[in-house]
């Protein structure tokens, strides 16, 4: 979890161009490891493409694609984020104090995305190994075609959760409005409780693994089914 560093280098987005800010973060060498971005004012593509174990705190809300393609870095947004936060994240940690808009963590390969508020539609769409923990609710079509990784939701999930799911694991504590095609509830085994306990701990989430249900792929869509030929 990101902690606001007291000796962080402050980058004022009211004074600097977005590209300057991102260049400063992307070019961070060993000397500076903590940055504070002030006045983000809903800007797009804040703190994207980072590839070093630095800590970035964003003091306010951002727009589209915050912390996209993140590698190694820890990005903490003290506000809400627009669509596509942590899109295609490879590793590192992204923590959002507020809400996240559409397709949070889309296509992410690794790392941990924590949303302390709600995430809207298509959360974790096509996720490929990222772990996502949402303290609130998620919207419809979340984890659509999700391939790998874990999506943990403390609140409720919207319609068509896990539609056309591959091998991502979905854990929901609250209600699921409806399951998408080929997504089913599955048995919670000890190894899943262990994964959940670790993720909840790392995400600072106050919940017990036993309170969740697990959903996964029925694996019926993996292969063409000749019996259904007339339905296509």
């Amino acid at each position: 979890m990101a902690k606001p560093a007291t000796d962080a280098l402050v980058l004022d987005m009211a004074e600097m161009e977005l590209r300057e800010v991102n260049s400063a973060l992307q070019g961070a060498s060993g000397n500076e490891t903590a940055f504070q971005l002030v006045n983000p004012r809903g800007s797009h593509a804040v703190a994207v493409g980072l590839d070093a174990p630095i800590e970035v705190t964003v003091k306010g809300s951002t727009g589209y694609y915050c912390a996209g393609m993140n590698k190694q870095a820890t990005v903490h947004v003290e506000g809400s984020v627009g669509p596509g936060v942590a899109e295609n994240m490879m590793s590192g940690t992204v923590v959002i104090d507020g809400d996240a808009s559409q397709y949070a963590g889309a296509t992410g390969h690794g790392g941990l995305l924590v949303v302390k508020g709600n995430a809207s539609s298509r959360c974790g769409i096509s996720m490929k190994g990222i772990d996502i923990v949402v303290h609130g609710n998620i919207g419809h079509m979340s984890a659509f075609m999700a391939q790998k990784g874990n999506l943990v939701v403390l609140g409720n999930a919207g319609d068509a959760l896990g539609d056309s799911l591959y091998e991502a694991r979905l854990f929901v504590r609250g209600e699921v409005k409806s399951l998408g095609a080929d997504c089913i509830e599955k048995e919670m085994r000890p190894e899943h409780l262990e994964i959940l306990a670790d993720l909840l701990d790392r995400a600072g989430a106050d919940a017990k693994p036993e309170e969740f249900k697990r959903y996964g792929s029925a694996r019926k869509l993996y292969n063409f089914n000749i019996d259904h030929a007339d339905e296509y």
Partner: protein
Amino acid sequence: MCGIVGLFLKSEALRPKLGEMLTDMLITMTDRGPDSAGIAIYGDPGDGLKVTVQSDTPAEAFDGLEIALGELLGTAVPVKVSDTHAVLTIPAGSEEKAVAFLEERGLRVMGVGEAMEIYKEIGLPKDVAARFDLRAMGGSHGIGHTRMATESAVTTLGAHPFSTAADECLVHNGSLSNHNRLRRELARAGFVTKTENDTEVGAAYISSRIAGGASLGEALEGTLQDLDGFFTFVMGTKNGFGVVRDPIACKPAVMAETDDYVAFGSEYRAFADLPGIETARVWEPEPATVYFWER
């Protein structure tokens, strides 16, 4: 892609600043729609009806208009000219006669209402705002749009908002796919659209429902059944505004509320300068859910 902004003031004290606040919000949405921009602004209803007209040759078109219309209606008609637009105040009940006369003179009628004035033109939002001095306008609520055209040409009449009934107007981000069939059905029912634009059909649909007795909320609810396509709509009425997104909800929307106002934006950026935004309740409107605020 398009940009939408909306502002509904709860605080009387902010009313003189409505134009200023809405203009800043509108200009922030330039990236989402640099083709054209428009705004509908609602002031206090006064005596009579306000008719907003537009002409590409305002010098000739507005020359003598005050006298000619005054003679036709048998009363003085105050005319407020603002660049290519003019707002004429006519007595209640004379709308049909006045509109026929204005259209006969080649003027484009942008909207009619007790409270509503509409200003829209092609060009960058900052230029459109400057031409009409939008910043100086006060009022109780207003909606604005920055357009990146997809479904019809970049023209003044293709810009948003679209008004299809007194004091009602609609702005839209998205595209409708069943607008041609619906346009014909609405025309048969007496709701004739003026352009090839899909949004105008959406506006006419909502107006037709309201004319049939539906509330604003019911009319917006109806769009979820009867309109096919992508939409985030913001609808202005004399008393307030409403918001609805289609069930897929891929067109962005964010809202903010404080004790002083309710604000709508396609993106949070539009809110960055609003007073008290740091402590406002900010949320994303749910798909297929109608929200409205009225006074």
